[in-house]
């Protein structure tokens, strides 16, 4: 329950989903992978979206942010906080932005002049972690409007993975499941309480070395190495307790939640996770995992799925929606939001 001076709510959110679709067969056909591995059967993936050469993390972020501000009808000068949560901050030419914060550049591009700007790094949980901080800042009265943004230009990871002998470097195979995209959320003050709520966040650092993103060796851009099955097992081992505690923290009734979005993973793992959740808390209404044609877009994943739901006409104003986040580290947190007013007109 809210106990602060102010309340907050999600005013809008938006994702930019690049138009270019690259089919899985073009880069990870059965004959190309070790042991005739069928990545489609394993992950359910049909392909990913690829940004244009001139669209780096910055440009992708700005596109999502502009759409988000337009949807909320909030002018840039009313934004007090900009947080960028992209993991790699990779430009179209594969240079990686380091300093100062990319949030400062995003603010400049949007015409935001007086906001506090910084970058947040918490892997795939960066956006929800930033939303949690922004929510607290709004509730304390420090700020009124916060823009949380991320642009993941990560499909160079696929080329990097394929430049290795995947028989010897099987930890690179998870890199074949990524896709490009960007996301933005706008949080603002609310008259009503409990429009945004968070579970207690946790980091189970015993799993910290299971997914590593860093500079590629002997080629431009990033690389990623993942012990995917161990990481998924870490999530599954703790999922039931985590969800029970999250529902208690937020005082929510699981069966009244209209939509549940988790970090995308293979259909098999989603089914396992779904079984754990339903065995502990009961049946779910709508458990979304429509990532088959966008892939894993890192920190933007939840918002990319939300955008697809908008396009499909699945979301309505005021609907109870739960986002469950797992990020390398291993970070676990959940956010419950009420769908913003006017969402039916967004598509």
């Amino acid at each position, binding site marked *: 329950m809210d106990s602060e001076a102010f309340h907050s709510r999600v005013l809008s959110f938006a994702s930019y989903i690049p138009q270019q679709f690259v089919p899985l067969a073009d880069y990870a056909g059965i004959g190309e992978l070790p042991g005739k591995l069928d990545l489609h059967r394993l992950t359910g993936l049909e392909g990913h979206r690829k940004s244009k050469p001139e669209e780096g993390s910055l440009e992708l972020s700005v596109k999502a942010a502009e759409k988000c501000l337009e949807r909320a009808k909030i002018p840039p000068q009313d934004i007090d906080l900009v947080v960028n949560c992209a*993991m*790699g*901050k990779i*430009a179209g030419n*594969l*240079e*990686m*932005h*380091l*300093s*100062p*914060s990319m*949030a*400062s*550049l995003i*603010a*400049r591009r949007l015409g935001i*002049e*007086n906001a*506090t*700007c*910084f*970058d*947040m*790094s*918490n*892997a795939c*949980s960066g956006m929800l*972690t930033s939303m949690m*901080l922004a929510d*607290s800042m709004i509730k*304390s009265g420090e700020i009124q409007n916060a823009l949380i943004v991320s642009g993941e230009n990560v499909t160079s990871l696929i080329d990097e993975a394929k430049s290795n002998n995947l028989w010897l470097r099987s930890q690179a195979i998870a890199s074949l499941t990524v896709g490009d995209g960007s996301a933005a959320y706008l949080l603002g003050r609310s008259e009503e309480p409990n429009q945004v709520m968070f579970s*207690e*966040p*946790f*980091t*189970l*650092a*015993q799993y*910290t*070395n299971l*997914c*590593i*993103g*860093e*500079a590629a060796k*002997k*080629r*431009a851009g*990033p690389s*990623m190495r993942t012990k995917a099955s161990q990481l998924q097992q870490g999530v599954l081992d*703790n999922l039931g*307790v985590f969800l*029970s*505690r999250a529902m208690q923290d937020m005082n929510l009734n699981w069966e009244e939640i209209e939509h549940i979005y988790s970090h995308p993973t293979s259909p098999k793992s989603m089914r396992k996770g779904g079984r754990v959740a339903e065995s502990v808390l009961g049946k779910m209404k709508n458990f979304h995992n429509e990532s088959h044609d966008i892939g894993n877009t890192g920190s933007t994943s939840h918002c990319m799925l939300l955008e697809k739901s908008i396009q499909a006409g699945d979301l309505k104003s005021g609907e109870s929606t739960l986002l469950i986040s797992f*990020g*390398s*580290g291993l*970070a676990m*947190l959940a956010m419950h939001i009420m769908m913003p007013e006017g969402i039916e007109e967004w598509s």
Partner: protein
Amino acid sequence: MVVVHGWKSAPIGRSGLLKSIAALSKKVIAESPINLNDISVIIHGGVYRRNFRVEPAFATHVQDALGLKCTAMSPESRHCFSFDVSDGSCSPYVAFDAAKHMLKIKPGGYCLITLGDERPNAQSNWPYKPISCVMIVSLEGNGPRLTTTKYDLAGFDESTCVNMTYNEKKSKNVISTHNVIKPPTNLPDSMFVGEVNWLSGQQMHEFLSQFSPGATNIHQIIDQSGKIVTATWK
């Protein structure tokens, strides 16, 4: 408002950033009245990591190195939450502001703020002698008390942005060449202003080393990009 209960700093040396931060963290906790398990949040502020690592957050490696509540979840178990923030050498105050709010979200505990950078690789031109600095902070108690922070984006010069770029000759990703703003002259005596080329750890090390208890202390960090943060301490 956050209060610094204890702090430690040291040159990073050859052992690397993680070992340096972990050793300092153990020392500062040992010398304070709190236990390791009282730490509920770890926030790291910095820009440069070994081999330009971006995932997972450095703070999660610190948590692992300290063995802090790295256990399976149970209905009653307590766990830490760890993440990184960055904004050039203004990162310390981003970390303080984040700590203030995270300690409301995970109440009753203490936050470990770690600051530091290390050369990403031997091939990168990196003209710094890094210092790591760790601090235990909470919302109440005795010690240096941060009351306000104010960020100024107006002087931000985009030509100063630092990137990782690929060097064909070295076959390595290295730090790009970049501009640095001209440091201001005639700085006021009423505040402590760090050097433009100090990284996050050194900024806080130098400020806390000269902190005057019982007086209002103003600390200004001017990042080499022209971004400025001004903090008031009591």
